[in-house]
């Protein structure tokens, strides 16, 4: 991105900031750190400083912009409508150009663009993970045996194992139904592909049960969120372009089940793609993007839902509630499930503290933010915490293990799929 154009776009946003400080009252990072260098207005002012030349793109500055969850609470709260999300992403890009990213990250992001290499790497990882990871005490996940260099994995942290079989192993590339209402293309994303494939399978089940054909193209690559949120827009663009190509086709909807992937496809690609032609293709595609809970709310047949007497609460992933404006929809679906005891938690839409790579660089801080979330979840008395983002799921599960909680976590799609299964059984039984 040319520096000139970047600064012009910055200027448009920066001028809107009236420094009122409302961002202080909504930022989860500020609430923990109590430091003006973590507020949105602080970062906005730093960018003004960069434009004036008073502030340089130093590693210190880079660090200030890294210490942000990109949860968009400030975007929502800002009375002047400053688009701090696009501004800070752009700042990370500028910083990355100036200071370059750590080698490990650069390699990892580059690796993402080599789909087959990435896939093989993760499969090997699935097999070899026990070498460097040991099973956690409660059996929910793995912990690093030692400080793995470059991994950013805190020794306390419990992460899910890489699945033995990937989503593509357990679900065919294309599933068809007898009289399809429509054709869906499903973008599972890396988490659903390699870590929580069962949730991905649930998505396909949901689509099929509602009489939609589902295709999972085998040349999809990572959505690019880890890359472009770190400032590597070049890799992000490469991945976006590849995905766009793969997703184009005679499809009625593009289904996502990961908040970050969905927000990337629906909105963020629009910020990083520059070529006019590709941008146009993206515009067309973005109108078709639906999170699975949106799909069920809009097209799902409520009669399919059988009774599911579980006590649940729901966490609104940032990229769903503020990134895709999806928050009413899962609740509408919950209301339709017979006997489901849904309890709204306090601050359901406040960030869980994961923030993607944030939780690796700032594990302690992300733990503290996560603890508030879990306290609120536990206060509802629910047995299950449901969410539509696998990064949240991973971080929340770690938190539950840390505090030895019995609460379980599941993906929204898994809940709906369970209800569908019960629905089928109950119909059979009822006959």
């Amino acid at each position, binding site marked *: 991105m040319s520096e000139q154009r970047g600064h012009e776009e910055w*200027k448009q946003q920066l*001028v*809107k*900031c*009236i*420094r*009122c*400080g*409302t961002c*202080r*009252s909504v930022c989860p990072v500020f609430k923990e750190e*109590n*430091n*003006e*260098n973590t*507020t949105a207005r*602080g970062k906005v*002012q*730093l960018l003004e*400083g960069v434009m004036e030349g*008073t*502030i340089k793109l*130093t590693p*210190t*500055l880079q660090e*200030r912009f890294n210490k942000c969850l990109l949860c968009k609470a400030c975007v929502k709260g800002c*009375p*002047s*409508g400053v688009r701090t999300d696009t501004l800070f992403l752009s700042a990370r890009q500028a910083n990355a150009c100036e200071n370059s990213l750590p080698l490990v990250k650069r390699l990892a992001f580059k690796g993402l663009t080599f789909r087959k290499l990435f896939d093989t790497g993760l499969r090997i990882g699935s097999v070899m993970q026990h070498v460097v990871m040991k099973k956690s005490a409660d059996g929910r996940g793995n912990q690093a045996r030692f400080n793995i260099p470059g991994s950013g994995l805190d020794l306390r942290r419990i992460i899910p194992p890489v699945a033995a079989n990937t989503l593509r192993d357990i679900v065919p590339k294309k599933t068809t139904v007898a009289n399809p209402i429509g054709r869906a293309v499903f973008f599972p994303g890396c988490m659903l592909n390699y870590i929580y494939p069962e949730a991905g399978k649930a998505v396909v089940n949901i689509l099929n049960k509602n009489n939609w054909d589902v295709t999972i193209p085998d040349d999809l690559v990572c959505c690019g969120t880890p890359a472009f949120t770190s400032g590597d827009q070049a890799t992000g663009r490469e991945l976006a372009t590849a995905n766009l190509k793969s997703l184009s086709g005679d499809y009625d909807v593009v289904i996502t089940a990961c908040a970050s992937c969905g927000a990337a496809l629906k909105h963020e690609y629009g910020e990083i793609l520059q070529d006019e032609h590709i941008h146009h293709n993206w515009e067309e595609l973005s109108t078709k993007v639906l999170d699975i809970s949106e799909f069920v709310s809009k097209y799902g047949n409520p009669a399919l839902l059988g009774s599911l007497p579980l006590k649940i609460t729901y966490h609104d992933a940032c990229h769903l509630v503020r990134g895709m404006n999806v928050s009413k929809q899962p609740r509408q679906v919950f209301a339709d499930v017979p006997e489901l005891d849904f309890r709204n938690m306090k601050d359901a839409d406040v960030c869980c503290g994961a923030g993607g790579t944030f939780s690796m660089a700032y594990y302690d801080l992300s733990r503290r933010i996560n603890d508030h979330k879990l306290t609120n979840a536990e206060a509802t008395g629910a047995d299950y915490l449901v969410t539509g983002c696998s990064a949240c799921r991973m971080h929340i599960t770690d938190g539950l293990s840390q505090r030895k909680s019995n609460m379980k976590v599941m993906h929204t799609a898994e809940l709906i799929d369970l209800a569908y299964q019960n629905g089928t059984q109950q119909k059979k039984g009822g006959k």
Partner: protein
Amino acid sequence: MNQAVLNELKAIVGEAHMLTELEDRYCYSFDSTFINSMPDLVLQPSSRDEIAAICRIAHAHDIPIVTRGAATGLSGGAVPVKGGIVLEMTRLTNIIEINKVNRYAIVEPGIITQDYLAAVDKAGLFYPPDPASSKMSTLGGNIAECAGGPRGVKYGITRDYVLGLEVVLPDGSIVQTGNLVDGDMSGPDWTMLFCGSEGTLGIITKIMLKLTHKPQSKQTMMATFDRIEDAATTVSTMMSSGVIPTTLEIMDNLTIRAVENFLNIGLPVEAGAILLIEVDGDPKAVEKHVQHVLKVCEECNASSVKVAKTAQEADDLWKARRSVSPACGKINPTKISEDATVPRSRIPEMVSAVQAIAKKYDLKMVIFGHAGDGNLHPNILSNKHDKEEMARVEKAVEELFQAALKLGGTLSGEHGIGYMKAPFLVWETGVEGFQFGKDVKYAVDPKSLMNPGKLFDYRPSPS
């Protein structure tokens, strides 16, 4: 600041709470005004004793100290215009005591006002001053600026609730003022001097506040007027004939249009003004007061009055008033909020003056505010990148002050003098009054280390 001093200060607050990097100090160079000035150092103490120790060192080495809460002030009070130390108070957040029987609270200054209000509410009591910034601002900041809020006309402002203070003086000594019973002692009223002193006399480290009963019921109304003069007359008549409303907010025609453009809720865009009125108290009294207000509105030619029948309806009526800020942002990004205040009977004249000034300097201005106490907020909507326009804004603001003073008003009803209005302070105090202010300041802070460059310590820069 030499390394030895830095080491001494670091020993007091710890390395984690001393910010020296340029990128961090930059974040502490501004508040909610548009001026920037870099501090030399930012310190984040956690206790009164740390603060006293810091003051002793600053005093010994002539280092200015600028006390800072959430820095949401609108007069530049927290901006370190002469560099020095920014002393961030937000680690002192304890509620030391809420005494339900004797109805007082003792709190540390760094607590966010909203958090304090919630705690008081939970204890079944009521603390009326609720400045618009209460979700972010700290109680210490409220005291230092003597914050107001929409409930001021009936319940009074922050100073009406301050019973006493603990203050660290510039030399590090500690004094207590007032008392927990009624705040009145003898001799000069130090509590009242420190309240509203904008960080120029000492650092407030503990606050004793009066609490009162929650109002039993309240009623919200919105009255529409063809002429803003009628709205103003309604305000005066209502109050002198027996009803002191809790809240009385006014919005002029341009404000109404801005909000309607933003919200699309069917506001009367041809109206001269809207009044948002709230009365509270004993339910029988409220019923009667509502009737009285309706009568007065009718007598003063209101074109319509709407009385909210449910809490939701009341909330909807307030929505328009709350949306003024974002609505203004849509017109022009740089919103300069003024608070030159006039006696309530002169609101129509002030409105005319503001409109004339807007025309003279070709600026977009909207007028809204707390009509009950004459505290109008003329807001200039401009763009800070347009240097030429900003020069006109500066002149317009000066004329606003002159207009307010000419009408028997004051430079600031709520925001304080700070840095922004310091050049004009002498217009209101007169030369003798200004000297008296300097003499009092000198008595408490002879080295002029507390928030220099503000209030009576303003000196015009040689230009």
